[in-house]
C-alpha cells in the first residue's frame, strides 16, 4: 500500500491558496517585512517561527486584514485581498489573548460570527453544537469565559474562529498562555482538528518545538525576511544558513576555511587542530570561509580515539547538562572552541563514564555535519 505524501510545495501543478508577491511592510522608518514572496498551499499547517520583532505577527495581521502591505500584493484563492476589509475576508483569526467576549457565554461567543452572517437560527444552533463537540466543550456552553479554565478558553477561541469554516485560519501564539504539559496535549489536539476540518492553518510562534511538532512546513524568520521555509525535518537536518541552524535546536558552529576534497570539503578551523571533512553539495571556492554546523546528538564521545571516523578531536569536558534521558557534554578543545556532544544516559547517574575535567575524544561521520556559507 502506497501512501501519498502531502507535499504540494514540491508539485509544480499545485495551486497555492495564499501568495505573497513582493510584500513589504514599513512602519515609519522601520521595515517590518522586507520584500517577501512565498506560497502557502491548501490544507497546509504553516508555521511562522522567529524571535519577537522578526515580523511574524505583522505577516499574520496582513493576512487578517488589520494591516495593509506598503508594497506588493497578497492573493487568497486567486484574488488580491488588499481591497477586502477584515470583516469580509474568508479568513479568521485566533488571538493570542483569545479575545473572548467576556459578556457573552461560550455558546454566544462561538455563535457570534455565524449570527453576523445572518444564518437561520437552527443552522447556527447546529454549527455551534458541532464546534462544541469538536472542541469537547459541550458541558460549558452556558458558562461565561471567566468561569472556565485557561485551556478551555483556548478551545473556545479555537471553536469561535473555526465556526465560520474559514478558508484560512490564523493562530497567533495559540498555546502561549498554557502551561507546558497542557501545551503538549493541545498541540496534538490542534493537529487533529486541522486534519478533521481540512482548514489551512497559519500559526505564529516563537516556540520552535511547537512549530516543529504541529507544522507541515516551518518558515524561520529574521528581520522581516523568511530565511528558510521547509519541512521540520529539512529545517533541522538541512538548514540553509548559520542563522537557521543556530535558531533551531542545539548546534555547534565551527568556522574555518574550506578546501575541496572528495565529495565534500576539508575545513581548517583552528591552528594545531586536524582539518575536518564534511560531504556537501554546495559550491565553494577553495580557501573561502565556511561554517560547519554539527548537532550534538550526532557527535559521539569516547575515552579512546575511534578508528572508524575521520573527524575526531580531543578535548576536555567543561560542563555537563543533565537532561534526564540525555546528557549534553560541553567539550573544550585546546584551541578554545566548545563542541557539544550528546549521549543517552543508558546507565545510572552514579555510574556515568565521564565527568568534569576528563580528557575525551569527540567524533562524527563525514555526513553528520552540515557545511554552510559563513
Amino acid at each position: 500500500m502506497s501512501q501519498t505524501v502531502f507535499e504540494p510545495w514540491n508539485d509544480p501543478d499545485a495551486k497555492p491558496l495564499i501568495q505573497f508577491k513582493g510584500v513589504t511592510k514599513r512602519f515609519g522608518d522601520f521595515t517590518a517585512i522586507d520584500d517577501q514572496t512565498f506560497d502557502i498551499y491548501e490544507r497546509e499547517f504553516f508555521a511562522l517561527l522567529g524571535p519577537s520583532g522578526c515580523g511574524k505577527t505583522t505577516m499574520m495581521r496582513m493576512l487578517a486584514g488589520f494591516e495593509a502591505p506598503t508594497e506588493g500584493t497578497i492573493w487568497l484563492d486567486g484574488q488580491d485581498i488588499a481591497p477586502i476589509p477584515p470583516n469580509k475576508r474568508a479568513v479568521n483569526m485566533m488571538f493570542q489573548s483569545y479575545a473572548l467576549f467576556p459578556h457573552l457565554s461560550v455558546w454566544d461567543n462561538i455563535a457570534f460570527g455565524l449570527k453576523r452572517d445572518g444564518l437561520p437560527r437552527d443552522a447556527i444552533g447546529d454549527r455551534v453544537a458541532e464546534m462544541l463537540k469538536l472542541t469537547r466543550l459541550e458541558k460549558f456552553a452556558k458558562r461565561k469565559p471567566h468561569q472556565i479554565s485557561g485551556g478551555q478558553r483556548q478551545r473556545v477561541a479555537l471553536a469561535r474562529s473555526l465556526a465560520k469554516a474559514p478558508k484560512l485560519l490564523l493562530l497567533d501564539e495559540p498555546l502561549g498562555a498554557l502551561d507546558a504539559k497542557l501545551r503538549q496535549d493541545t498541540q496534538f489536539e490542534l493537529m487533529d482538528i486541522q486534519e478533521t476540518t481540512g482548514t489551512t492553518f497559519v500559526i505564529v510562534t516563537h516556540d520552535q518545538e511547537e512549530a516543529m511538532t504541529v507544522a507541515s512546513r516551518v518558515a524561520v524568520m529574521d528581520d522581516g525576511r523568511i530565511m528558510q521555509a521547509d519541512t521540520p525535518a529539512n529545517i533541522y537536518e538541512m538548514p540553509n544558513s548559520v542563522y537557521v541552524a543556530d535558531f533551531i535546536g542545539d548546534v555547534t558552529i565551527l568556522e574555518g576555511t574550506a578546501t575541496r576534497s572528495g565529495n565534500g570539503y576539508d575545513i581548517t578551523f583552528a591552528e594545531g587542530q586536524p582539518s575536518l571533512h564534511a560531504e556537501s553539495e554546495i559550491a565553494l571556492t577553495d580557501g573561502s570561509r565556511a561554517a560547519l554546523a554539527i548537532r550534538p546528538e550526532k557527535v559521539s564521545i569516547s575515552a579512546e580515539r575511534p578508528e572508524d571516523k575521520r573527524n575526531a578531536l580531543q578535548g576536555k569536558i567543561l560542563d555537563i547538562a543533565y537532561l534526564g534521558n540525555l546528557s549534553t557534554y560541553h567539550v573544550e578543545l585546546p584551541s578554545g572552541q566548545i563542541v557539544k556532544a550528546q549521549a543517552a544516559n543508558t546507565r545510572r547517574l552514579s555510574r556515568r563514564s565521564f565527568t568534569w575535567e576528563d580528557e575525551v575524544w569527540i567524533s562524527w561521520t563525514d555526513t553528520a555535519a552540515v557545511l554552510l556559507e559563513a
Partner: protein
Amino acid sequence: MRRLALIAVPYLWLLALFLVPFIIVLKISLSDYALSIPPYSPTLDLSTGWQGIKSFFGALDFENFTFLTTDDLYWKAYLSSVKIAVVATLCTLLVGYPIAYGMANAPDHWRPTLMMLVILPFWTSFLIRVYSWMGILSTEGYLNQLLIGMGLISEPLMILNTNTAVYIGIVYTYLPFMILPIYATLERMDASLLEAAEDLGCSRMQAFWLVTFPLSRNGIIAGCFLVFIPTIGEFVIPALLGGSDTLMIGKVLWEEFFNNRDWPVASAVAVILLLILIIPIILFQRNEQKQREAEG
C-alpha cells in the same frame, strides 16, 4: 479584638456623620411647629426624669407626613424632581459617553491632559460656575450676543429661568461624574476584542454596539447613578438658573426651612427624599458589588 477595632472605625464614622444627623432630622419631622427657639416642640427635658421622656415620645406623631399628602405641591415637586433628574441624567450620558469614548481612544500621551481638562472645572467654586452660566444664558448674555452677531437669530432666546437652563446647568455640573466611570471601563477594554469582532464579520458600527457598548455597561450604570442621585435633591442649579415654574424638591425644602421657618415639615420633606434615594443607592451598590464579583 484588633479586627473589631478596625471595623469600628467606619461604623463610628457612619454613626457620627450619617446616623446621628438623620435621627435628629427624623425627630424634628415628627415634632410640631412652634414659635420658639428651636422652632419646634417637644424638646427632650431630662430634668423631669422618666415622666419627661414619656411625655416627649408621646408628643411625637406623623402629622407632618400626613400634611405632605394633603398638599399636592409636595408630590408634584418630588415627581418633577425625579423627572428632571432622569432627563438630565440621560442628557449627561449622551454628552458624556462620546467624550469618554474619545478620551479612551486618544493617543496614550494625550490621556492625562484630557483627564485634567475634565477635572479642571472642580478647581473653581461650583457656585461661581453656576453664576457664570447666568451670564452666558441671559437674554443679554454671551450666547445670545453670539447667535445674534452671527445672524442666526434676530430675537434673543429665552433660556435663563427655564427648565432648559436647569438641564444645561445639571449636564455641565455633573458631566465629570458621568465621564470618569465610563472612561475607566472603556480604557480597560482589550483592543483585540474589537479586532476579533471585526474578524468575525462585524462592521465598525456593529462592533461598537455588540462589544464596546455592552462592555461599558457597568461604567454607564455607575455614571448614571452618580449623576441621578445628587440631581434629585439639587437646589442651587434650579434656584439660580430655573424659573418660577421649575419645581424641584430641593427648592421646596429650602423654602420650608428658610422662608416658612417650618422646620418639622421641611424635615419630613427631607426624610421622604432620603427614602426615595435609598432605592437607587441600593441598586448602585449592587451594581458595584456584581462588578467586583465578575472581575473576581
